[in-house]
């Protein structure tokens, strides 16, 4: 399609203008508001005891969620790609389900299952608190991040096919050896990409986590909950800006990783 210079330029201006107003300006403003009082103010705000414990809790949740998702995500992807069984289409749909479910609905669903009055309420009465405890927050995070690893690994598995694995088996490698030496190296970039997405979402999840957390500062507050409570409960607007900027910094690192990994993936 040959587009005249004038039209092309005006389309460019509209597109970039939209992105500027929607993304660049707000981010610029929050950066300005965060760093206007000085770097020390920012550092002080993100190193209060409550902020530290929030960061620790967020990292703890990530540290549990990532390995779990890697193991089950790769297993699920293998089953979906390599397995021929009835109900595979159904399994596919279940993997995509978390994308279609509102975070708030995730929270409500977990309360209905694990809460004191839920199906597994007996656990709660026995003293093992899932909802309003860390297990609930972990379960919520796993729910919302479940598709990432599967969806990133699946197409790679499809693409590499089974020939390399079969070649390894004809050369004497057993199932485990084939997995560690052939399959895993082949999917490593896709898997890493999935992990990066998982980390980003696990750190950033808010809706599902706030529903199942008691939200006590210093106890059960993640970074995102900290941002929320500082703004709403403490009316500490600056504190909220600072914590949000911290999270944004993490997001930028994630974005950078995504770009680099994307290039690595397509290089192969």
């Amino acid at each position, binding site marked *: 399609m040959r587009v005249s210079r004038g039209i092309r330029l005006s389309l460019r201006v509209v597109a970039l203008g939209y992105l500027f107003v929607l993304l660049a300006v707000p981010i610029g403003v929050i950066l300005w508001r965060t760093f206007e009082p000085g770097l020390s103010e920012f550092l002080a705000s993100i190193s209060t005891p409550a902020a530290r414990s929030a960061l620790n809790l967020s990292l703890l949740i990530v540290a549990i969620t990532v390995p779990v998702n890697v193991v089950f995500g790769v297993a699920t992807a293998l089953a979906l790609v390599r397995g021929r069984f009835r109900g595979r289409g159904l399994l596919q749909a279940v993997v995509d389900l978390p994308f279609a479910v509102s975070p708030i609905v995730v929270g409500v669903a977990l309360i209905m299952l694990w809460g004191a009055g839920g199906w597994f309420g007996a656990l709660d009465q026995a003293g093992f608190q899932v909802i309003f405890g860390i297990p609930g927050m972990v379960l919520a995070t796993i729910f919302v991040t479940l598709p990432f690893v599967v969806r990133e690994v699946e197409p790679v598995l499809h693409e590499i096919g089974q020939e390399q694995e*079969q070649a390894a*088996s004809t*050369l*004497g490698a057993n199932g485990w050896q084939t997995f560690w030496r052939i399959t895993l*190296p*082949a999917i490593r970039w896709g898997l890493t990409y999935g992990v990066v997405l998982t980390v980003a979402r696990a750190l950033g999840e808010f809706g599902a986590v706030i529903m199942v957390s008691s939200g006590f500062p210093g106890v059960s507050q993640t970074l995102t909950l900290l941002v929320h409570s500082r703004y709403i409960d403490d009316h500490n607007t600056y504190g909220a800006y600072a914590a949000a900027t911290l999270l944004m910094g993490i997001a930028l690192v994630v974005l950078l990783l995504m770009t680099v990994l994307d290039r690595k993936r397509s290089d192969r």
Partner: protein
Amino acid sequence: MITVTSARKNYGSFAALDDVSLDIPSGSLTALLGPSGSGKSTLLRSIAGLEELDSGTVTIEGRDVTDEPPQRRGIGFVFQHYAAFKHMTVRDNVAFGLTIRKRPKAETRKKVDELLEIVGLDGFQHRYPAQLSGGQRQRMALARALAVDPQVLLLDEPFGALDAKVRTDLRQWLRRLHDEVHVTTVLVTHDQEEALDVADRIAVLNKGRIEQVGDPVTLYERPANDFVMGFLGSVAHLGGQLVRPHDIALERDRATALALDAKVVDSPGVIDAVVERVVPLGFEVRVELRAESGERFAAQITRRDAAELQLREGEKIHARATGRSSVIDVDPALAI
């Protein structure tokens, strides 16, 4: 010796192997030849253990391997698309089987270097498969398969993904390699020329069954049936029979044609035809003809004969089959 007995394999209602039995002598280079969907790849993969048979048995050098996984069959397998381990260097690819077997490092290194020299890839040790041409990748795959000293070497359309020139080169090279290494080799191909060129035995498969097994000359000259004849070279329909185009002679004089034809057993008779086109093919000339029945066929004659006949398009001519060699002649002893 590889022995496959009463092998059956179904994919749904499709019979990929329909009661196949085959012996492959030790040290031979056998080609499994057939059109796509004939079951040749399934047969090869069943020998390798990459497919499990529904019923039937496979033995390799007298050992029943029917229930053995590929790891324990003592085979080397070469895939059409190389199945190169993309994240490993050429050396690591070739060394893979030895590494799995935890061979001493020095021994592995020596063996790998040896093999890379044999396949003409010395100096490429540290490259990655992506940095090799298709032909080089396939030679690497061969070295990798040979590294574990397999009892049998199985090749699944090994040259199918390569271009014509590389394909013929590698073919010759495989032939020479086999003369040196003498490992029992089975090659799957749909290319009759490749099979005739490289193999010392050919099994022709069609629709999950074996049509005929034999050496290339026998298969070409004494095909068991129409299918084998048609698959192993071009054929012309002459008076209801199949004849190789170069076994058709053309005569100006009908009486001469009849007299010569009388000496041929089971001949299709003399066919009157009209010359439609004369196509020079270098040493030979292809003459495209239309019989009086309307049926079109082609004869392949030498330039000299063509010059003597002074063929012109539109002229009438008399065609006859020159010998019984290529005319269908079923020898029950050869048919399986």
